[in-house]
């Protein structure tokens, strides 16, 4: 995965990865705040928000969150690739509880 020519950029790679982790931590918080927006909106005429438009808004946010997570998970996947191999698990080594 890492060719011998990349070492100068290793630090930058891991820096990117760490910032990506930060982003992954922040995303649900932003998502939560965005999902609360319908609480603070109402139609000035009727005094009530339109269920349809709020629904569209919520689904749009939902989709955006999914898309963002998808983007990030592609980067974060690297963390698992390096050390991990699927351990064998066919043998019972004596857990008897």
């Amino acid at each position, binding site marked *: 995965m890492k060719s011998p020519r990349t070492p100068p950029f290793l630090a930058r790679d891991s820096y990117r990865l760490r910032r990506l*982790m930060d982003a*992954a*931590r922040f*995303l*649900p*918080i932003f*998502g*939560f705040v965005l*999902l*609360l927006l*319908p*609480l603070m909106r109402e139609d000035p005429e009727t005094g*009530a*928000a*339109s*269920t*349809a*438009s*709020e*629904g*569209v808004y*919520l*689904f749009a946010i*939902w*989709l955006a*969150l*999914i*898309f*963002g*997570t*998808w983007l*990030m*998970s592609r980067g*974060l*996947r690297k963390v*698992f*690739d390096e*050390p*991990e191999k*699927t*351990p*064998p*698990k*066919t*043998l*019972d*080594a*004596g*857990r*008897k*509880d």
Partner: protein
Amino acid sequence: MSFNLLVLTCLAYVALLFAVASLAERSAEDGRAGWLRSPLVYTLSLSVYCTAWTFYGAVGYAARSGLEFMTIYLGPTLVFVGWWVVLRKLVRIGRENRVTSIADFISSRYGKSNLLGVIVTLLCISAGTPYIALQLQSIAQSFTVFVTDIDSAPVAGDRTLIALWVAMGLAFFTIVFGTRNLDANEQHHGVVTAIALEAVVKLVALLAVGVFVVWGVADGPADMLARIDAQALPEWQIQPGRWTGLILLSAIAIITLPRMFQVLVVENVNDKHLATASWAFPTYMFAISLFVLPIAAIGMELMPAGANPDMFVMTLPLALGRDDLALLAFLGGFSAATSMVIVASLALATMVSNHIVVPLWLRLRTAQGQDTGDMRLLVLNVRRLSISIVLGLGYLYYTLSGGSEALAAIGLIAFVGVAQILPALLGALFWRGASRTGAALGLVAGAAIWAYTLLLPSFGAGIILPAHVMADGLLGLPWLRPYSLFGLTTLDPLLHALFWSLLVNALAFCLGSFLSFPSPIERVQGALFVNIYDRPGLARSWSRPMAQAEDLLSMAQRIIGVKSAQGFFQAQAAAQGKAGFLPDITPEFLEALELKLAGSVGAATAHAMIAQSAGTAVVSVEDLMAVASETAQIMEYSSQLEAQSEELSRTARKLREANDKLRKLSVQKDAFLSQISHELRTPMTSIRAFSEILMEADGLSAEEQAHFAEVIHDESIRLTRLLDDLLDLSVLEHGQVQLDVAPANLRKLIDQAITSSKSVQAQRHFRILRSRDDEEVMITTDGGRLTQVFINILSNARKYCTSETPEMHIQVRRAQDLIEIDFTDNGSGIPTASQSLIFEKFSRLTDSLQAGGAGLGLAICREIMQNLGGDIIYVPGQGGASFRVSFPRVLSLPAPRKDAAE
């Protein structure tokens, strides 16, 4: 549609599930389970979150409350979007510690406390049983909705009967695929694959109905949105409190629901799958909820007033003449219900068997002194029984509660119940200081408040909680009213219960953790859980690929010996029908080997070693603790041995010393005897020779006779003196000497000694240098003996001083009560090598004839001085021979004899 057709469809569907599950099991057994472990299957299995309550109920929920139904999916979406924070850690810990359920997770984090396991299990059962009942109800309900022909009405109309059959069928399925084997990781490929299939069925069903509604009934999305707004009720207005609270609540529930924990953590085979599920599962939920509101709106528009909105998914296609869609929807609901019931009963049964039944059974057996024997079959049977019990409870709950009203709200009530696990769970993940006591207190307090403020009142006033308690509070105290504790009246009952139970739970959890002191294993587990990432590869480094029989053989040889190990392996191979030394690595063989090794190194170590070699399992902290305690025992034993051997070697050293001393004494004695005989023999020889000459004295002149007689006389005197000396020495050495202690003037004693010693080599003139003033000391001691010492020293000086003009310097010093006298001559002194010998018996440095003594003088002097409580030493480097005599000024009897033993 006929009831029989419906039943046939169900049976065909169930048969498909069986086929898929057994196919998956077989692939897994053959090791061809690659596709079973794909992230897709993992993601789809997570859909057990979407139950029949979701499938049917969401539309009803939307019809009643508008967008609020979305909260049930938005909360989990946020959790999965933030998977990096909580889920990743949860899954990693769960996999590395081979956690079998959420109760196991909590109990193993807090020091493998079974108490916590029991608490969590009971909580999960009390929250889960009504939930299972809800699924049974929805299946039964969907049957009755569907069946229209009169003939089958007696059967199809009997919901209780249908629920019973469904419960029994599900119990059968779960037992077959959930307890096929007792896997170390508690993973069930058959079940998971079947669940994944069901996830597809329910999604397709709901999407099909949704697409039909939006594009078949309505005129596309725009028209749909307009129709939704047209149907909007005032109640559809989003309520801020419930909106926020329900998002949080469902976010909590996705982590703490036992069935979610089962598929999310226990059935996870690879951390990486979570990265896919992080976006794929929200996508699934997105798709599931996309058409809920349209179906609800169209249902409200087209269905007659009073129709149950919970059943719109089926009744709407039915009413519009789309029986095929309705059947698909029925199957979707059926699959949603069955998947939930299967996983939930599996998870609950695992908890019940692991934390309640098996510990109890073991305790009973131990109490009766019976061997615990093979646990494998027992655990499987217990689990089968537990599944039946859990489903039986669900069915019982359903028949008892009967009406749908009590059950409709049970989904969220169960959410609040399992949410009580959250503080302990988060503490387990992120707070090392969280303690067992805190977790137990928090769980119990939270569960109690949940039961009092939500679960019990949900049955209705007067069913469990008396009406007056509901109205006036417990014991008539208004601030204890279940729905408004402490006067909190503005929250609706659900939020009210969520708020109070989690608040008190977290408070008790924190306080309990602050004030209690965790046990060592608790702290170790805490560190292990919280710092799971800090030791990358530590646990995994132990999980090597599966052990080869060769490796095991070489390990066993190291422990039980080459011959014995090879014999054992050969016998095991023969038992498997194989020739040679290398049997197949079967669990049975490993168990036998472990037992064999345990005989040598102790059970815990053997288990740890096998686990390491087999590479399947992380060595648990308990294993390590057991190893440590065994090691401690061995160390204690060996330190005892060490102490014993040290004592032995000490004794041996003493014996050796004593032996050396004895040998030296024996040598001394021999030397002494030979010296004595030599000393006695010399004068005797001359006496004999001269007396023989005298006897034949015929030709001897008188002068000659006189001379010979004088020689004989001298020799006999010398002999007598020698014998006197020996006697003296013997008396002195044995401390039998009678000391004549009296006051005396030191100067006079020295005067006397000088006078006496003048007779020795009287021709030599000695210059004596002394200070008479210093010598004017009155002493109380045996003056005669002291003078004897002085005479000896002075005589020696006269004999051996090599100087042409010999001088003797006598110095007297008084140091408090001690008198020191230095006798220093100006001769050549005594060679350093000989200085240590001069006080020994017969240690004459020069020829005996020249000295004219037996060499006992200084030995006697030393004995005398020691009898007088003093000493005589040789002081080197004084320009000649120098002897220092020291003794107490006043001798107090009995004299403290130094080294009397010698």
